[in-house]
């Protein structure tokens, strides 16, 4: 297993390099001159040239890439001109908030989705299956930002159960219960679509497994039906559910951008949108590379979990 993890980590290196190249190339396509953008249109040509040299923009493209990459590896993601602070500091400040939000939503979608899908498959065409299928269809069709707004309207404005926005109360908050009160609505709103997708695929995977011969063997042994479903069948179905969870993590991370906007959550997603609107390119660049790298890391975790669950995978 240790060897497999190492192998998987090594194989992530070209992917990470590819990600940096793609981001770098996209950013290099920006029309216009960054120095002019920073200094404003009244800047003198000498000042523009000086800044260009300072930013390393007079170098050929490939050298710029390696300089940028080298700096990033040393933890220097550049400086956000809109916020006037190092990009990495800003990202790290914001990332924990996103991690809490997306992590909670991911756990919710995995647990609820798998349970709903399993029940749905076990009661195929029964009332529970139809009810779950209906909720799932609704869930995967509702835009998460609209759902979030409606939740604010109902649970924050009408019922006053949860605060409408932010991560902590401004006055006298900051502890765990306060965080949970603020987290509940955004985490649920963020998890709904992914829960629907996971439920759907779990149902399909379970139906596929339930027709297999080893399920009949378990029944022939006299194993209780509950254990046949939640033990034998679900264990085998997990092999095809786990990769889906890896993909869903990406969707949850993506959806966090909308949810952070709706609930004023101080995360990386909101930071990115603000940075785009302010044309703060280095912040966008650094943020995208950082999150993509985290996602690659998470996918390694998923693969390792998969190998651990399925002994047939050569480790």
């Amino acid at each position, binding site marked *: 297993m240790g060897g497999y993890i190492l192998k998987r980590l090594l194989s992530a290196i070209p*992917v990470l390099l*590819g*990600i940096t*190249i*793609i*981001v770098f190339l*996209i*950013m290099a396509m*920006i029309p216009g001159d960054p120095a002019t953008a920073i200094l404003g249109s009244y800047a003198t040509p000498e000042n523009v040239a000086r800044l260009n040299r300072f930013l390393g923009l007079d170098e050929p493209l490939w050298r710029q890439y390696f300089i940028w990459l080298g700096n990033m590896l040393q933890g220097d993601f550049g400086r956000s001109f809109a916020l006037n602070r190092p990009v990495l500091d800003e990202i790290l400040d914001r990332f924990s908030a996103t991690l809490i939000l997306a992590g909670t939503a991911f756990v919710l979608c995995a647990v609820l989705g798998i349970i709903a899908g399993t029940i749905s*498959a*076990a009661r195929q065409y029964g009332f529970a299956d139809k009810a779950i299928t209906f909720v799932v*269809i609704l869930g995967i*069709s*509702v*835009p998460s*930002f*609209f759902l979030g*707004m*409606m939740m604010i*309207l109902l649970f924050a404005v009408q019922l006053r159960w949860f605060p409408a926005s932010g991560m902590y109360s401004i006055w006298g908050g900051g502890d765990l219960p306060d965080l949970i009160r603020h987290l509940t609505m955004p985490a649920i709103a963020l998890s709904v679509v992914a829960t629907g997708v996971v439920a759907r695929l779990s149902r399909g995977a*379970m*139906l596929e497994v*339930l*027709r297999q*011969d*080893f*399920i*009949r*063997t*378990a*029944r*022939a*042994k*006299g*194993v*209780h*039906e509950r254990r046949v479903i939640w033990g*034998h069948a679900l*264990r*085998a179905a997990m*092999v095809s559910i786990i990769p889906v969870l890896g993909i869903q993590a990406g969707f949850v991370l*993506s*959806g966090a*951008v*909308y949810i952070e*906007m*709706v609930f004023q959550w101080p995360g990386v997603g909101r930071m*990115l*949108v603000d*940075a785009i*609107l302010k044309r703060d*390119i280095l912040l*966008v*660049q650094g943020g*995208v590379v950082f*999150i*993509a790298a985290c*996602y690659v890391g998470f996918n390694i975790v998923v693969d390792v979990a998969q190998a651990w669950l399925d*002994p*047939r995978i050569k480790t």
Partner: protein
Amino acid sequence: MSLFLRLLFRNRLAGFGAVVLGVIVVLALLTPILPLHPPNETSTANRYLRPLSDGHLLGTDHLGRDLLSRLLWGTRLSLAVGFAAALIAGLAGAAIGVIAGYFGGRTDNVTMRGIDMLMAFPYILLALAIVAVLGPGLLNALIAVAVVNIPFFARNIRGITVGIAHREFIDAARLAGMGHTRILLTEVVPNVVPVVVIAMSTTIGWMILETAGLSFLGLGSQPPQADLGSMLGEARSALITAPHTSIVPGVMILLIVMSVNLLGDGIRDALDPRLRSGALARPMAATRVDRREVPAPQDEGLLRIDALETQFQVGKRTYKAVNKVSLDLKPGECLGLIGESGSGKSVTALSVMGLVASPPGVITGGAVRLEGQDLIGAPYELLRSLRGKRVAYIFQDPLSTLHPLYRIGDQLVEAIRVHEPVSHAEAHKRAIKLLEDVRIPNAAGRVGAFPHELSGGMRQRVGIAMALANDPDIIIADEPTTALDVTVQAQILALLDELRQRRGLAILFITHDFGVVGQLCDRVAVMYGGRIVETGPTQEVLEAPAHPYTRRLIACVPELGEGRRILAAIPGLPPAVDQLPEGCAFAPRCDKAQDACRHGEIELKGKNRQVRCLYPEVAP
């Protein structure tokens, strides 16, 4: 096509989706000629009018603009953008996929690595990066959404193209001297188009949602132009004071995406042959029983199957897999049940403990009595407590019948602990003992192995050990040696025979091989077309078969050292059990068949030896 539409509309939800989407699309198309307020006409006196106000059916927004008009114009824009994004992503992705899949080799490798890189991003990050470069705007959002979805299409289409590129007609075209471009355009693309169209139709809702999302963030359509997403984004600041301005566009997005999803699901289901045939149905914990009358009990033997009828009900068709089959098994006896594939022998065996997959299987008649207790229609809990405890099964292919992800020791331990409340350690010890009993060398070491780490013969020994776990009275062995090679087969048979004698087991042995029956079984029953056609002591049946089918079946067994002779295959095929002929089911393949064989019910006659034939080879 009409079948496809019928299947689509039989799915009520898909029909509902089609109708809703149809209405929305028609409204969007008609928007320019409908009598609406101009969408951008502001009126400060009429800000935030509630729905159903005079002249404004859905009310007005923060600038006093008519919401209904803006909704329809916004819908028009969102639909167009979503459709365009799907089209661009579909075409570009398909082009990449076809080229990579068709040319293969390095082209494929390089392209697909690039696609993998793109897929390593959470999708919105890439879209955000693209919008960051191009600047906010609806067209840029469209491009971003399209680019982000290219990998999905490229991957799917590549997979399909690879499948096509190695087919014979492509080789034929190449041999005929056609160039790559021509082959691609005339042979590959037409085969790929339907897949692209289906993939597009299922992702279009997704594209609409994504562009609406970018607009919601303020990165898509810019004022005064508004799609549904930017309407929602603008309305957000007035969420509490004028919620209708948010609800109106939000519900519209929900309706569009939901109807597209429902329709997409419907299309996919209607095209899936497995769903049509009901093959995706999940088998229940016990076979469904729907029987009108119960045969009177006859207490004889350990296990008595009486006039058992098991059917498969698929759509309007009924397959009579088991048709009034009666068998009995005495303690310590080995009964062989023999027949060709599809004769109903396995279904008979599985019916005993309610293990026939249901749906589609239904037990429609007869009784199965274990020491007088009827198992057909017995409560599930009773059936479960007897499964493995009194009656155990050994199945054909041990690779697919053992759980692939559990260690064999754990599977044995589970079999023991399900029926007996012993500690895990105690059960583990017994599991090792069981493995030793079935002659698995180094049992203590093998107990932690996974099924895929064992050879076929070893796996089947594990299957036997599992059947023996609770010292059952009866073992039902369903072709346990068919998947094994001959030497292993002989070992397994010897093992079964030894275990039977040592433990006093009764065995119901299902096989299609008379050679195996001769080695192991005291008595034999021959099945054909769901019915028993002959029964009797093995030696007598082997030496003097009474039914023409039995005679032909025995003649099929090649014997070593007999010199060259013609292998006597039986011409024709076993009958389809949904349309059995009247009279004898074997008559169409029988060389002795007379007119009388094709009419009426032919009885199973005799006492010790029984035969269902009007003109038996020997008198029973």
